[in-house]
């Protein structure tokens, strides 16, 4: 029995080796024929020929297209298709039941989002308006703050290296995961705040102080909000400070020397030299600020509530499902963010000064 199997196996093996060697010999024969060698020569010739025929400028263009080809594929698959899919979802009732089924409902998702959608944090419209006000009011605060800090960090003083290191630390620590974990740990923060808010902070109220200084009420609330958010403002202006700092350092030194000889003060030098020279960077910093503040806005967490990919519960929403409502909200958010970016760019580009040597 054993011998029988052995014979079969050896015969199969020898058969295969014979076939393989025959194929090998066949290809060898082909490779040595004149026709094949001619083909090989042509194949080798093509790249060299192309290099000779196509001028360098043309080749550069072709290589440019090849270099961005993966980016194009990635953009279509990872960005554009999801973008259009989400537009389609926003006009449909999305039902997941062994595959995705779509029912066209027109603007019902949008209407639901604006009229009924609400969580414990408030309705969609309220939170949307709040988020827009937050983002719009944060832009000037963060830009002015980061420009001032950059000016201060650029001057020479003792311990500058340490202060710089501390100021850029939030750039490292900004993490959505940490924010998420901290929101679930608010109970601890509240108790700690309750114990630390001592007599002194009750005695000295910043807003009362401003009111006594005859500052109008609107300004007081604005400043009060800004001072309450000071940690957020610092932690989201790290990159902007870096941008402004490098912009200040690249201002030609001879401008300051001339100003000093003419007897200009530091204050005048800031407004007449530093500010105009740095202003082109305002655009970059502003766009970065807007993009960054979207990620932290409460709207994102609100929308995420409707993104329940693990549980499907359409009973609470009437005939609509979470997914369509989520897509509609996302689109409203996205459109508004684009409008804000376009407006800010348009406004700032009017104020920017371009220096030509």
């Amino acid at each position, binding site marked *: 029995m054993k011998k029988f199997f052995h014979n079969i196996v050896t015969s199969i093996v020898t058969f295969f080796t014979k076939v393989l060697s025959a194929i090998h010999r066949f290809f060898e024969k082909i490779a040595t024929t004149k026709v094949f060698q001619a083909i090989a020569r042509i194949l080798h010739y093509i790249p060299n020929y192309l290099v000779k025929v196509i001028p360098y400028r043309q080749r*550069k*263009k*072709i290589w440019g297209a090849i*270099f*961005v080809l*993966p*980016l*194009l594929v*990635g*953009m279509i*698959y*990872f*960005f554009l298709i999801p*973008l259009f*899919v*989400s537009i389609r*979802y926003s006009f449909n009732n999305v039902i997941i039941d062994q595959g995705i089924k779509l029912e066209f409902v027109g603007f019902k998702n949008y209407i639901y989002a604006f009229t009924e959608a609400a969580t414990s944090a408030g309705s969609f419209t309220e939170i949307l308006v709040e988020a827009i006000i937050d983002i719009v009011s944060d832009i000037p605060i963060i830009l002015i703050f980061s420009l001032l*800090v950059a000016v201060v960090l650029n001057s020479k003083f003792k311990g500058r*290296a340490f*202060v*710089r*290191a501390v*100021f*850029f630390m939030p*750039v*490292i620590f*900004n*993490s*959505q*995961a*940490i924010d*998420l*974990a*901290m929101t*679930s740990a608010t*109970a*601890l923060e509240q*108790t*700690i705040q309750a*114990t630390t808010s001592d007599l002194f902070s009750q005695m000295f109220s910043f807003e009362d102080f401003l009111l006594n200084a005859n500052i109008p009420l609107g300004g007081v609330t604005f400043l009060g909000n800004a001072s309450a958010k000071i*940690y957020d403002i*610092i*932690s989201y202006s790290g990159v902007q400070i*870096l*941008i402004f*700092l*490098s912009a200040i350092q690249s201002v030609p030194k001879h401008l300051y020397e001339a100003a000093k000889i003419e007897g200009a003060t530091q204050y005048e030098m800031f407004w007449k030299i530093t500010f105009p020279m740095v202003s*082109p960077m305002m655009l*970059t910093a502003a766009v*970065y600020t807007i*993009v960054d503040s*979207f*990620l932290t806005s409460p709207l994102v967490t609100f929308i995420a509530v409707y*993104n329940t*990919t693990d549980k499907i519960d359409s009973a609470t929403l009437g005939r609509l499902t979470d997914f369509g409502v989520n*897509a509609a909200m*996302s689109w409203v958010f*996205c459109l508004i*963010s*684009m409008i804000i970016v376009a407006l800010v760019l348009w406004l700032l580009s009017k104020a920017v000064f371009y220096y030509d040597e």
Partner: protein
Amino acid sequence: MTNNPTKMSFKARYQKFREDWDNPTKKRVRNKRIMEISGGILRAFILIGLCFIILLPLLQKFSFALRYPTDITDPQVIWIPGTFSFENIRIAFNYLNYNVTFFNSLVLSFFSMCIQIIATATAGYAFARLKFPGSKLFFFAVLFTLVVPNETLDLARFLYFQSSNFFGIDLIFNIFSIYIMSAFGMGLRSAIFIYLFVQFFRNLPIELEESAEIDGAGVIRTFWSVMLPNAGGATVTVGLFAFVWQYNDYYFAHLFRYERAFPVLTTKLAAGSGNLSAVLTTSFGDLLRHLGEEIKDDPLFFGLVTNTAALLMMLPLLIAYFFIQRLFVESIGRTGITGM
């Protein structure tokens, strides 16, 4: 003898003081010094205050990490722990499954950083120097991807990736998805990195390329041997930011459902309180008996553990930051983003 100011009579000294006070030159010098000193004091006040605000949460996390769990309900303990203990750190270590997830996070960030650098550098070079018809429009499209928040595409991406695949590769539940997205230039904030590289390559002297062309180098040779070695500044910046942002990223790890197959620090940290009670019952029986079973559902205790866990996540970056801090501060200046 009268020249010696210490031996002068009071009246003479007063006379001299009056003269100095009215002297216009000395007046100007004095005013300038006063301005400088008061400016320095003001700056010191502002900077110390701001540094304190930045460091406060970090110090608080250290203080939380080192206290015994019962200290949270003690109203007398605010900053200095009543009983020093490493109990929180041990719990947070287990809660994060630190020895596995930390290594995973490092691997993920490192490889995605390398892929991001290669992908964005080639694209940036093409946009800056290899102009082809439509390249300007395409560059605008790339910048446009920045303006659309990733979160708005979350659901569409998840459902779409689940129902289709990318050239035969399933993306959801696949631990290589982040690398694939980075390789195709759509990784974490890749558009910013492409923008940085474009700015940098634009500012390199055109003579470098021209001399390479005259020496007979092709496009790839020029890019690889001439342009890329000169792009050190931009590469360091992109590498630093790509690493840090990937290390802190929650969005992609959540989108591709990394929790089970390849747990990283961020997904563990955001996992929630259910995970904590499981950890407590399995490996901290003694402590539970000592503190009482009900501590498992205590939100204060959960806050304490998440604070410690967040600290554990930050700590390696913090330690590394103090070594490469100078690199970081100078990074954007070297990319030439500011032109000039």
